[in-house]
């Protein structure tokens, strides 16, 4: 509910300014459910987030406010490392072997860095991204299979 709460609180101020940018960061489950990892809450909530994104984008577009999702792939954050460490432990494999397998499934052949997410976020928040709204932009090194 966090993004619903914050969107409600800021949209009035953005409407008064006739300008705004809302970027909601989620995961690649917005495009394709996680199957390799038991992330059921991600699979369920991110689908809802995608629908919310599109609906809010339509509502706010006439006010020059864009609303977009960023779908996060395998990005080297503390949370990612703790997830993978726990998963490796539970499945009896080494952390290094798990990460090597994940990297092999990513067309660019590596885990991403937080700065690579930030670059996309910064662009979507800029004046240059004025004609992009209601979208889910995937930052995953090509991992997701969907068109």
């Amino acid at each position: 509910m966090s993004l619903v709460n914050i969107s409600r609180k800021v949209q009035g101020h953005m409407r008064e300014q006739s300008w705004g940018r809302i970027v909601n960061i989620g995961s690649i489950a917005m495009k394709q459910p996680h199957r390799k990892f038991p992330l059921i809450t991600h699979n369920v909530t991110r689908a809802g987030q995608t629908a919310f994104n599109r609906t809010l984008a339509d509502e706010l577009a006439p006010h020059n406010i864009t609303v977009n999702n960023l779908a996060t792939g395998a990005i080297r954050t503390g949370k990612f490392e703790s997830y993978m460490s726990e998963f490796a432990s539970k499945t009896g494999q080494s952390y290094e072997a798990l990460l090597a397998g994940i990297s092999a499934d990513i067309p660019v052949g590596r885990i991403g860095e937080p700065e690579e997410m930030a670059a996309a976020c910064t662009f979507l928040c800029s004046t240059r991204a004025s004609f992009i709204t209601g979208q889910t932009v995937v930052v995953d090194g090509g991992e997701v299979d969907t068109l």
Partner: protein
Amino acid sequence: MVNSQGIGRACAQGLAENSAKVIVVALRQQGIDRAVVELKGENLVAAGVSADMTTVEGARKAVSFARDTFGDPGIVVTNVHAGELGRWD
């Protein structure tokens, strides 16, 4: 308005480097303070507030802080945790 670690922290950096005045919002004060000190140390404009964004009151607190500090927010970046590892069963 962004959060204090990982991707949120990197977004705060990217936005601040592009002249945004950044409000860092998270639950833990320690992470907020660290992020704000680091950003200010690079002569970027930042402030922070602790708020529970899963609640309406937390969202109200964050937006009020942003308005009082830098004016009406024009950009919001949410980076919400979606749960731990777990299957349906």
